[in-house]
């Protein structure tokens, strides 16, 4: 392109390469466009987005003030103006493709903001309403013989931890071994394909159905009206196993075949290859998957409402009597707060905050473990 024939294009190409991204340079390029392509497309300057954003914000502010809309109206109008102005400018200076790119960028960021706002609001609301409820008494007292003010969530925390740990003990080994079976042993096996398919189906099992399953199972043995902590664990593991299997399967599939082949080439047995090469490589992802699974089931309410029931006292026996859990505590405290209602509802917000903190702590711990255990690769 650089060694073109006419002197006119020489000049144009040179000027284009020396002063990039100046919209004015298009005018010098225009006479020769029929002969040859310009070296660079005209581009909007780097600060174009900021300029348009500022103008849109200002214009929106003027309209908002004159019409008396609120802050929300200002935000919406500013975004709409920005979303129209930038692509149009780009269309005039650059080309259709670039304009489309800018429009999509705006849409993507708007979708992001729309999705994040409620999540931020959720956390803010829970912290705002829950923080003042939490004190030493709240964390170390049960609700036994408490009417009105006072009491706490100790019994619910104990129940939640016991049931969740029991569920994890049931489902993590089954989940990981199944994933290994699917990826390492049954890649083209009919039964393995059926398992993959049905695991996918199981991920869609509603939590309440899992609760009904556990109830139906235990009711056949112990008679109708049964309420047991271990039943809750069975219900939760039914929800947890498919999540563990799916995430582990994905992670095992990501392990490059070269690693396995290298191991086989050294004469390492298949099971040692899996334990020593495949699993360590995928460990970070597996831990993340298990973590997500635990985090999902620890807040599961519906199955526990059905099979674990609710009680005001501490119960540490998974195999006897009703067991209170944090989610069920939140639900009953808010919907049946007692008289006066404010104390029960305050306890619900407090318990919600405790539950969220437990979940976040679990998550951070798992992240840390995942980072420590993952092999040092340049990914």
């Amino acid at each position: 392109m650089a060694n073109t024939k006419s002197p006119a294009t020489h000049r144009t190409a040179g000027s284009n390469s020396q002063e990039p991204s100046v919209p004015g340079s298009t005018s010098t390029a225009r006479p020769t466009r029929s002969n040859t392509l310009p070296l660079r497309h005209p581009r909007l300057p780097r600060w174009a987005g900021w300029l348009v954003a500022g103008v849109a914000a200002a214009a929106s502010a003027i309209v908002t003030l004159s019409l008396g809309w609120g802050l929300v109206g200002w935000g919406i109008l500013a975004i709409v103006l920005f979303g129209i102005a930038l692509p149009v400018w780009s269309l005039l200076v650059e080309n259709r493709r670039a304009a489309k790119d800018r429009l999509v960028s705006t849409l993507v960021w708007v979708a992001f903001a729309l999705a994040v706002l409620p999540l931020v609001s959720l956390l803010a609301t829970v912290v705002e309403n829950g923080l003042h409820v939490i004190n030493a008494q709240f964390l170390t007292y049960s609700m036994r013989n408490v009417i009105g003010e006072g009491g706490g969530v100790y019994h619910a925390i104990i129940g939640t931890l016991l049931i969740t740990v029991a569920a994890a003990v049931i489902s993590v080994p089954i989940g990981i071994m199944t994933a290994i079976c699917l990826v390492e042993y049954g890649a083209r096996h009919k039964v393995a394909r059926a398992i993959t398919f049905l695991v996918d189906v199981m991920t869609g099992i509603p939590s309440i159905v899992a609760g009904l399953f556990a109830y139906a199972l235990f009711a056949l043995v112990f008679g109708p009206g049964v309420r047991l902590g271990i039943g809750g664990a069975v219900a939760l593991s039914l929800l947890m196993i498919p999540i563990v299997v799916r995430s582990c399967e994905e992670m095992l599939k990501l392990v490059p075949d070269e690693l396995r082949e290298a191991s086989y080439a050294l004469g390492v047995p298949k099971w040692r290859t899996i334990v020593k090469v495949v699993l360590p490589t995928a460990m970070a992802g597996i831990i993340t998957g298990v973590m997500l699974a635990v985090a999902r089931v620890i807040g599961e309410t519906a199955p526990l409402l059905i099979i674990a029931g609710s009680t005001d006292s501490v119960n540490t026996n998974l195999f006897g009597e009703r067991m209170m859990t944090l989610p069920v505590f939140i639900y009953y405290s808010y919907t049946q707060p007692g008289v006066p209602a404010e104390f029960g509802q305050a306890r619900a917000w407090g318990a919600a905050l405790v539950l969220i903190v437990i979940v976040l702590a679990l998550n951070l711990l798992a992240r840390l473990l995942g980072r420590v255990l993952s092999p040092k690769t340049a990914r």
Partner: protein
Amino acid sequence: MTTTVAPSARPKRRPGDVVFAGVSWAAGLVILAALAGVAIFLTIEGAPAFHAAPDAYFGAKNLVAYVWPLLFGTVLAAVLALLIATPLSLGVALVISHYAPRRLARPVGYAVDLLAAVPSVVYGLWGIGYLGKHLTPTYEWLEKHLGFLPFFAGPASATGKTILTAGIVLAIMAIPIITAITREVFLQTPTLHEEAALALGATRWEMIRMAVFPYARSGIVSAVMLGMGRALGETMAVAMVLSASGIVTFNLISSDNPSTIAANIALQFPEATELRVNALIASGLVLFVLTFAVNFAARAIVARSARRS
């Protein structure tokens, strides 16, 4: 144990291999047994309700008349949720994987992971204690300006406990789940594909459309499917947010709303006795069949569209 499916021919079987393969196959079969167990036990416990008196159905004539409005509400809420959640989740996933600078993307990714873990009952608490109240002006506006549409016919609910609120809460719950998966898939797009597209002069959006989306298609479908699973079966958020009267209507903003199967079970089960328990379990069986069918269809789509490696 027929485990000789591995393509590489191997002369002798080591005992370690046999044991390990056996254990992993057993784990897989346990899952099959569990799934079969769900169907079997729900049928056993639900069967007595099939020919029960109207009292077992809380006043409805028979099982079909009892379950149909609930089924309608379940599907309506889930569809609303996915209509809202899918585009937003793709946006969030794209921001994290391709748009945000890496310094920002990492913490945002962590934050989304953490939010996937926020329990449903907390979303319900937020929906009833915060969102519903703040949405009522919007509902009044919708009734006034878009009231000619059957969806917004009104009268607008004064408490905000409508099916639309429930749908929004469900969408917010589904966003972290859909995002978590699609983001992972987007990030796994081979860098070479992306760089090749960019080197050919594609804009960032064209690169995403040509390199990232085709690679991620089955991942996106399965992510939306997971979100759908959560929305269909989600119990507590709906039970807390919705003020249900069990009618069939497309009116999204009034205070008369269809209930959902899951929410209905959660509300009725703790106090139910005798045949009512069986009737509720039977409705749970319907929900199970519904989610099974949805997942079956989604899986079929994924299997047909995904022909990669």
